[in-house]
């Protein structure tokens, strides 16, 4: 279907919108809807306190974002990861692009905690640079070897 107009814009008589110009405009606004995969880096994944979270490159089934103005949407699917050290409450994912959360955000989380399935919460806090993954009831994550998986989605208002 030819793209000839959009709400609020009336082309001159006999003229239409050049699709390549519109596409370039939307790309400049980060409004194409395209998702960007985050390049793997082990440092993007940590535990709070003395808990360790090891996510190998092959564990990163999906870690991607979509940004528009001061909102970033992040989805993640991380499988067969390892939790060690002193068990604690948060597995943490660095917000892509080095962005900072402007306020609290909440998203959904489904997890497999050392083999036990559950639903939890993905959150950010004001001025935070990480997504915090908490189990149902905010209990400690269990130590595991290649048996912790997390899947989730969150939209975050960012400071810039």
């Amino acid at each position, binding site marked *: 279907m030819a793209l000839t107009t959009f709400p609020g814009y009336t082309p001159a008589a006999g003229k239409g919108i050049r699709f390549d110009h519109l596409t370039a405009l939307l790309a400049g606004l980060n409004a194409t809807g395209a998702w960007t995969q985050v390049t793997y880096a082990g440092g993007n994944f940590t535990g709070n306190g003395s808990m360790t979270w090891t996510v190998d490159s092959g564990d990163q089934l999906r870690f991607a974002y979509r940004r528009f103005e001061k909102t970033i949407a992040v989805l993640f699917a991380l499988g067969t990861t390892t939790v060690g050290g002193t068990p604690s409450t948060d597995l943490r994912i660095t917000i892509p692009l080095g962005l900072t959360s402007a306020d609290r955000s909440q998203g959904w989380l489904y997890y*497999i905690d050392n083999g036990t399935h559950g639903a939890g919460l993905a959150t950010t806090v004001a001025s935070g640079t990480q997504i915090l993954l908490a189990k149902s009831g905010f209990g400690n994550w269990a130590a595991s070897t*290649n048996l912790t998986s997390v899947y989730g989605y969150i939209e975050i208002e960012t400071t810039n």
Partner: protein
Amino acid sequence: MAADYLILSTTRSTPADLASALTQWRAQIAADVGYVQLDAKTFNLKKEGSWTDTQKATAQTVLDTAPTASPQLDAQHTLDDLPIWAKALALVIMDELNILRGQHALAPRTQAQLITAMKNKAATL
């Protein structure tokens, strides 16, 4: 040594009891085998070091022949990791029973015996 992954698909018509499968994968292949289920019939297995052909075949066989998931098996697995309140309930009853057993010159039941008995009972329900 780097982590290595193995994608497995199964043609079995019933869902596998994955706790049983994991026990067998770890016993027969490596103690650090982990898995994530990608869909109803596809699994991504992980361990340190490359998968040998023998290990791949073993992993497939374990998945294909694992017992079918059931409420009875779920209950038995849960008994290996009871919450504290459930342990307290069971152990209080056992302690009381052991007092009575002692009055009849019978040896006390142990916690291991209790868990085994509960698993056996779960299998019959």
